[in-house]
């Protein structure tokens, strides 16, 4: 069937594009490390790290999905949890459980991100109020200049 083949080809290209994007980011990160440590990375090494990272994403994705779904499978008599279909930061933290230092770092990063987002939201709320104030000042100036 031609359609199945075309779909297969599309899926393959999509996968290749993602791999290329990962490869680019990995290259940038390796360049930073190379500069910092004054050591070079061979092209094959960068390609290998890129491949491993891409494959690790599959494990991460499947785990994250399971964690979210599993949150609904507890037989707690006090609360009925609905199975979640949205992966949250708590699920991501579970991914980092195998290394204490990693878990600590990720937990701190999570708090940093939450704090930054809170500040950004606070800024957004302030903006419309500022605009109203400017408008009123403009009116006062106009009145002032007439007299």
């Amino acid at each position: 069937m031609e359609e199945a083949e075309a779909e297969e080809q599309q899926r393959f290209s999509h996968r290749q594009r993602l791999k290329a994007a990962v490869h680019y980011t990995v290259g940038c990160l390796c360049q930073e490390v190379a500069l910092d440590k004054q050591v070079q990375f061979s092209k094959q090494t960068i390609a290998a790290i890129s491949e491993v990272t891409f494959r690790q994403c599959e494990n991460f994705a499947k785990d994250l999905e399971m964690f979210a779904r599993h949150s609904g499978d507890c037989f707690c008599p006090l609360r009925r949890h609905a199975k979640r279909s949205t992966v949250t930061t708590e699920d991501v933290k579970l991914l980092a459980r195998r290394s204490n230092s990693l878990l600590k770092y990720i937990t701190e990063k999570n708090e940093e991100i939450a704090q930054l987002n809170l500040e950004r939201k606070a800024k957004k709320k302030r903006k419309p109020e500022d605009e109203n104030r400017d408008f009123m000042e403009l009116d006062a100036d106009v009145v002032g200049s007439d007299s």
Partner: protein
Amino acid sequence: MEEASGFRKELVSKLLHLHFRDCKTKVSGDALQLMAELLRIFVLEAAARGVCQAQAEDLDVVDVDQLEKVLPQLLLDF
């Protein structure tokens, strides 16, 4: 603060959705940002451990031979 390289949120989202079994599964914005950070750490660890191995072998290039030696422990730590 300097913007270091990292994984873009859209890329992380596409990478995860590629492997989700349920099409209804979504990822919160905060979780995407955290995942981007996790992936960044993964790559930096792989690179840094590769450098350690190369330095231990008195080399100034990290080749696949060095990476192969640090990969098993890296995968166990993640």
